[in-house]
C-alpha cells in the first residue's frame, strides 16, 4: 500500500470572517445604544415672575385646560382639532397673537403635552402657560 502525503496549505487563523462580522455587529449595536440617551421634547422659555409682560387684550387667546383634559375658550368647550382651526383663524387677523394656556393643577401631564404639541405645530410664536391658582 502506498501512502501519499499531501501537504495542505495552512489557512490564516485571522481570516475567519465570522469573527470580524461579529465584532463589527457589536460595534454597531453599541453605537446605536449610545444614541438612545439623547433627550427630545419641547424647549420653553419661562417668563419672569417679577416682570409680567403687558399684552393687548385683543392679542390674547386664553384657553383653559381642565382636569379631564377638556379645553375651554370663553366658557365654551372646544375639541383639540377645533382649537387648531380657531388659532389659524386668529393668526390671520392677529399674527402676533399670544396663546395663554391656564392649566388645572390636577390635569395629567400628557394632556398638557398634547396642547403644547398642537401650538408648536401651528407655529404660534407667543405661547404662555400658567397653572390655575389652587384653592
Amino acid at each position, binding site marked *: 500500500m502506498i501512502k501519499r502525503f499531501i501537504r495542505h496549505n495552512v489557512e*490564516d*487563523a*485571522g*481570516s*475567519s470572517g465570522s*469573527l*470580524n462580522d461579529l*465584532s*463589527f455587529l*457589536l*460595534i454597531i449595536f*453599541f*453605537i446605536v*445604544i*449610545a444614541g438612545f*440617551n*439623547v*433627550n*427630545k*421634547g*419641547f*424647549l*420653553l*422659555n*419661562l*417668563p*419672569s*415672575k417679577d416682570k409680567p409682560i403687558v399684552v393687548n387684550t385683543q392679542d390674547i387667546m386664553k384657553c383653559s385646560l381642565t382636569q379631564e383634559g377638556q379645553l375651554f375658550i370663553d366658557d365654551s368647550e372646544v375639541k383639540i382639532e377645533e382649537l387648531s382651526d380657531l388659532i389659524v383663524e386668529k393668526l390671520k387677523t392677529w399674527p402676533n397673537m399670544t396663546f395663554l394656556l391656564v*392649566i*388645572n*393643577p*390636577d*390635569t*395629567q*401631564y*400628557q394632556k*398638557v*403635552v*398634547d396642547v*403644547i*404639541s398642537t401650538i*408648536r*405645530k401651528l407655529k404660534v410664536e407667543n405661547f404662555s402657560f400658567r*397653572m390655575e391658582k*389652587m384653592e
Partner: protein
Amino acid sequence: MVNIKQKRRNPAITTSSMSDIGFLLLIFIMLISLMNQRYEEKINYSESTILERTQADENFEIWIQSNGKITANAEVLNGAKLENAIIAAIAENPGVRIHIIADRETPYKYVNEVVSVLQTLQHRVVSFVIKEK
C-alpha cells in the same frame, strides 16, 4: 540558460489583524458608553408627534413620578433641596440645560413646582422631555 524569472504570487491582503482592531474598537465604544451612563427613573414618557432635540453639552435632569416624587441624580428632592440642587448645577456650569422628565400621568401641579423654582431662580430655558409617538 538560467531562467531567473520568478513565479508571480497572487496578490493578497492580510486580514489577520482585522479582528484585533475590531475588538479594540469594541472595547473603546463599550467604555465610552459606560462613561455616558446616566441615572434613570422608571416612568411612562409623554408622547408627541412634534418634538425637537433638547440635549445640550451639559444637562441636569429632574425626574417627576406620577405620585409627585421629584428626584435628580438618584436623590429625592423636596422644596429647598430641589432649589439647592438646581443652584448647585447652575453654579457648576452656568450654561447647563435643565430637563423636566415627568410621567405622563403626573398631575401638572408637581411639574409646576419645578417650573416655579426655575422661575424664582430666573432660569429662563427649560426642556420638557417627551418621546416620539
